[in-house]
């Protein structure tokens, strides 16, 4: 009789454990205190970065993170005297990871839009800017976006410019998850061209591997990029500190130097910001 009862309890316990595993637990208790002092106390800065977006954030064969945004994150950690810990994020999860508290800072090629500002705290000034353009085979010589109406363009899933390109110029998007997949589709002529970041197209054309391609159209919607902290950190010490970091990078010309190091053609935005903020006393 007692064994029967124990067995029942055992099974009930196992069931409860299973269900407990699936029950919605309250999303990460937000650290109520100040994020900046917590980072200093723990000695670790958790930064969400891209691991698949060369040359801004990617991995080398040793598995280390490298790229322009990685340099920025390392500089933040060095300034605070803490150790940077990189958490790879993708466009689909970067804002959730930040809101949940898995990362305290996100530098992940995110453009600054009104919808995103409602979800995460985008730090100003912006640290970068880019527009969108199309990588086209040299046979296509049009300089008018409207000529692409109804044509199929390859693109990366979740890129911010997929929607404006569709809405404004009526192009059809064939979206892929990774850059390598898009390149393959383009080489196989599954689409007319590649809807992509204009700075990156410039990098690709400069590499010499794309000699049959060019970028004849004018760039569209130059949009600033923003690094982000949690929304409630934006006006707290952590958000203000990051604003200071970005302003300092513009003033000192560090962003221009990192951009050059990464092999990206100098962007007009960085030059303009540097000119505006640079030291007036020589």
């Amino acid at each position: 009789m007692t064994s029967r009862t124990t067995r029942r309890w055992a099974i009930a316990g196992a069931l409860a454990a299973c269900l407990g595993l699936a029950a919605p637990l309250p999303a990460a208790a937000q650290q109520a205190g100040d994020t900046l002092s917590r980072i200093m106390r723990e000695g670790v800065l958790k930064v969400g970065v891209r691991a698949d977006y060369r040359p801004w954030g990617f991995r080398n064969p040793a598995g280390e993170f490298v790229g322009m945004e990685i340099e920025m994150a390392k500089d933040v950690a060095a300034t605070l005297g803490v150790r940077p810990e990189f958490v790879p994020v993708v466009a689909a999860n970067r804002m959730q990871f930040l809101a949940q508290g898995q990362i305290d800072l996100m530098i992940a090629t995110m453009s600054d839009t009104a919808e995103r500002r409602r979800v995460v705290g985008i730090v100003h000034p912006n640290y970068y800017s880019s527009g969108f353009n199309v990588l086209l085979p040299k046979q296509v010589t049009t300089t008018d976006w409207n000529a692409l109406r109804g044509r199929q363009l390859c693109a990366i899933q979740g890129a911010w410019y997929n929607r404006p390109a569709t809405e404004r110029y009526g192009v059809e998007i064939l979206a892929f998850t990774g850059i390598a997949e898009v390149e393959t589709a383009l080489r196989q002529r599954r689409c007319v061209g590649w809807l992509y970041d204009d700075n990156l197209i410039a990098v690709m054309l400069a590499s010499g591997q794309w000699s049959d391609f060019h970028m004849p159209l004018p760039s569209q919607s130059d949009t600033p990029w923003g690094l982000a902290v949690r929304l409630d950190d934006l006006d707290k010490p952590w958000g203000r500190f990051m604003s200071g970091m970005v302003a300092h990078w513009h003033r000192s010309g560090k962003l221009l130097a990192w951009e050059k190091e990464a092999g990206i053609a100098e962007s007009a935005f960085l030059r303009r910001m540097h000119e505006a903020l640079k030291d007036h006393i020589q």
Partner: protein
Amino acid sequence: MTRAPDGKAAGFALLLVVAGSAWAQAAAPAADGALTALIRWAPLIGQGFVLNVLISVIAMAVGTLLGLFLGLGQVAPSRWVARPAVAATQFFRNAPWLVLLFYCIFILPFRITLFGTTVDVPNWLRATAGLTLPVMANVSEIVRGAVQSVPSGQWEGAASLALSRRKTLWLVILPQCLKRMLPPWMNLYAILLMSTPLASIVGVEEALTMTRNALGAERRSELLIPFYGALLVAFFCACWPIALATRRLEAYAARERTG
């Protein structure tokens, strides 16, 4: 007779890689060969693959333990135990694995404070929890099926020896079930291992994620086919021996039953 198709399978896998590399060579005379690139990235991708295996082993171990209790719960004489057990089994067996994975990644805490010490729960561990749930439900069904397939005479025999239900289960029924449960259980493991790349979608740094990162860093489209081909072969090499052993065991069990 049974071995011939296996040989073909291995041959096909090899062909895939060779064809992939050849295609890459033809497409790109520039830069270094696909094989050189593959060797350069192999340690990193291999590291990711270890995580795939680790995730599958943990999910299988925990899922089997939970599934065993859930399966026994399904055949329990008490309605109050059996009904919830059946419901939980059916629910998790019929839920898409990817949805459970997303659920666990975004719902489970990433940081636990126990007795004053704070422990970070890594992404991959939460993904493992997500994969444990369908394993649990499938093991539960395997256990239920096996227990019910034991002839009722065994229960009656045990009862005549005045064994309690619990003793009957553990001493008489389950040992007989083991042989029947093993092939489907191994099959489930192979399916689980092949499903672990799903975790790449939620940002776990397993083999598929690492392969994509490598491709993103190389930015050479001709590497796409050989890299994914190599990944296919890696999974094949891990799963094929399991499939072979499962078939052997099934054949053995069939002989036992008939002979």
